[in-house]
């Protein structure tokens, strides 16, 4: 009995030592994996480089330096900036042209975002969209109204709606999702409608349904396809009239749509009312335009299914821009 107890204590000691080893090793591996060599060291190295800029007191700025050519002329600025991501801070290096506004390129320094979601920030296609755009940056369709336009962001047209982007969101969660609808008006006509839902984890319903994580029926349209069909109806009819619903919120007006469309109708009606008056309009820059019409800001794509990461990227790039703009006095 006593012998067995002693064996137990020895076993416990062995497992404890191994546990500490595993946890410590894991910590080192995570650090190597996420920082590609420690942020503090990186900061130190950056500060040791020629042209280093004092970043003390600047929130979210890890380090910054001037980039110069052989004759000492400033050709650009490098700013290492960080913001809180989904798990740990996301750190990027943003290189600006010497106007302290145009982004030359961005590099991922470190992150611990989820593979397949936030970690998609490392994809070359995603990083390339930053090349040549001007800071501050916004998500496509969410840029503030330009001062050069009308006060509300909407421009008058001869037809029923005022040009601009109108974005409305549901106030309450319904079956675990917040719903949102974006309506774009160009030349007085509705040219684009996007309807989507987002859960508490920041995952979009359109994404979940397209990757098979939100499945309603095996043979029918996916949720995203049904949302797109509803959007197409509004574009074709320029209104939601004719979308009659039964007591369950279902409609027969759009082929293949079996979802309850109460949320869609509520948001679409609200957006159409706004579009009729121009109230709450945002600048319609065009989906493919990386830079606003007057070149004052840039627009980027969100990372699908990774709201926290997208917000972190917007925050760290804009923080870097504010910092370097103040430093350069431009």
């Amino acid at each position: 009995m006593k012998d067995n107890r002693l064996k137990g204590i020895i076993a416990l000691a062995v497992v404890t030592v191994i546990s500490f080893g595993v946890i410590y090793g894991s910590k080192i591996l995570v650090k190597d994996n996420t920082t590609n060599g420690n942020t503090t060291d990186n900061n130190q190295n950056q500060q040791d480089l020629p042209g280093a800029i004092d970043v003390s007191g600047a929130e979210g700025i890890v380090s910054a330096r001037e980039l110069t050519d052989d004759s000492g002329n400033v050709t650009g600025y490098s700013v290492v900036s960080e913001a809180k991501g989904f798990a740990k801070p996301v750190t990027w290096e943003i290189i600006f042209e010497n106007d302290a506004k145009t982004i030359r390129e961005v590099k991922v320094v470190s992150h611990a975002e989820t593979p397949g979601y936030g970690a998609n920030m490392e994809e070359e296609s995603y990083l390339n969209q930053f090349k040549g755009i001007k800071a501050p940056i916004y998500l496509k369709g969410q840029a503030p109204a330009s001062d050069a336009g009308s006060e509300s962001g909407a421009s008058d047209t001869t037809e029923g709606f005022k040009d601009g982007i109108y974005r409305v969101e549901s106030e309450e969660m319904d079956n675990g999702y917040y719903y949102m609808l974006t309506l774009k008006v160009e030349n007085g006509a509705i040219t684009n409608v996007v309807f989507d839902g987002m859960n508490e984890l920041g995952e979009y319903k359109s994404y979940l349904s397209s990757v098979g994580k939100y499945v309603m029926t095996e043979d029918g349209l996916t949720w995203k396809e049904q949302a797109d069909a509803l959007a197409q109806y509004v574009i074709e009819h320029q209104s939601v009239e004719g979308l009659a619903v039964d007591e369950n919120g279902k409609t027969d007006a759009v082929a293949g749509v079996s979802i309850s469309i109460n949320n869609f109708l509520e948001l679409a009606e609200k957006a159409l009312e706004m579009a009729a008056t121009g109230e709450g309009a945002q600048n319609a820059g065009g989906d493919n335009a990386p830079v606003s019409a007057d070149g004052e800001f840039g627009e980027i794509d969100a990372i699908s299914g990774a709201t926290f990461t997208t917000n972190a990227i917007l925050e760290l790039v804009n923080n870097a821009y504010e910092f370097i703009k103040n430093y350069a006095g431009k």
Partner: protein
Amino acid sequence: MKARYPMEAFALAMVIFSQNMRDALITGILILLIATLGLVLDGSVGIRLPKWSRISCSIILMVSLTYSLFQIVLRAILGYNIDTSTSIFHIFLGLLIANHILYGEEDRNYNLLLLEGAGAFATLLIISIIREFMAEGTVYGFKLAEINFRSNGFTHVVAGFILAGLGLAVLNKIFKYKDVKSEGIYVILPVALLVQPFTIDSIESSVGMVIAILAVMFMVYSINKHLVFSKLSKEIKNLPAELVSAGMVYMILSMF
């Protein structure tokens, strides 16, 4: 015959915490540590307590210890972000470890506990490597290869259930376990409670959740009743067969 290592706790870890090697490594070693600590404490203090007190003390101690240790290691030391459902799974792990301490082999052999626990830990790591590599092309977050046949399906609990069942069957064969007594329901129920295979849009979400849980449990129960009369090899009988059947049930119900 009873398992000498916390089989149900490792089975739950193989289903839920094997999506990537990072989680599997920490979960496996902590299960082994907590189970060993629990057995040593029970052997020196627990046996002196009346039965009713021993049971409640063991459950409270194991659950609180498991929850606290996972929070300290994952959140404070490694800086991971833990969501609520993961924390609830940690509580279930504590309950399964307490179950092993209270109702496991009475003649405790610590040598075999470490040996078989290490085997289960290794199986957990192998499953995590398979799932992470097939889903992301990475191992421990490091990209190994750009593979074209990646599939998100490996992150789903279906893959967890099936690989856990196969892994435990292999372990039973290696450890020469025959018809080992285990409760598959203890592993499947927590998963069904927190990860439903389908959602029903047209009704209240909580009602839809209850229907999904009941559907899983009913189907798993029905299959297990049928399996009683099946001629299975002794290694795959009980927990491994129940886990694989739960995986099949999830696969079928996920279509809806």
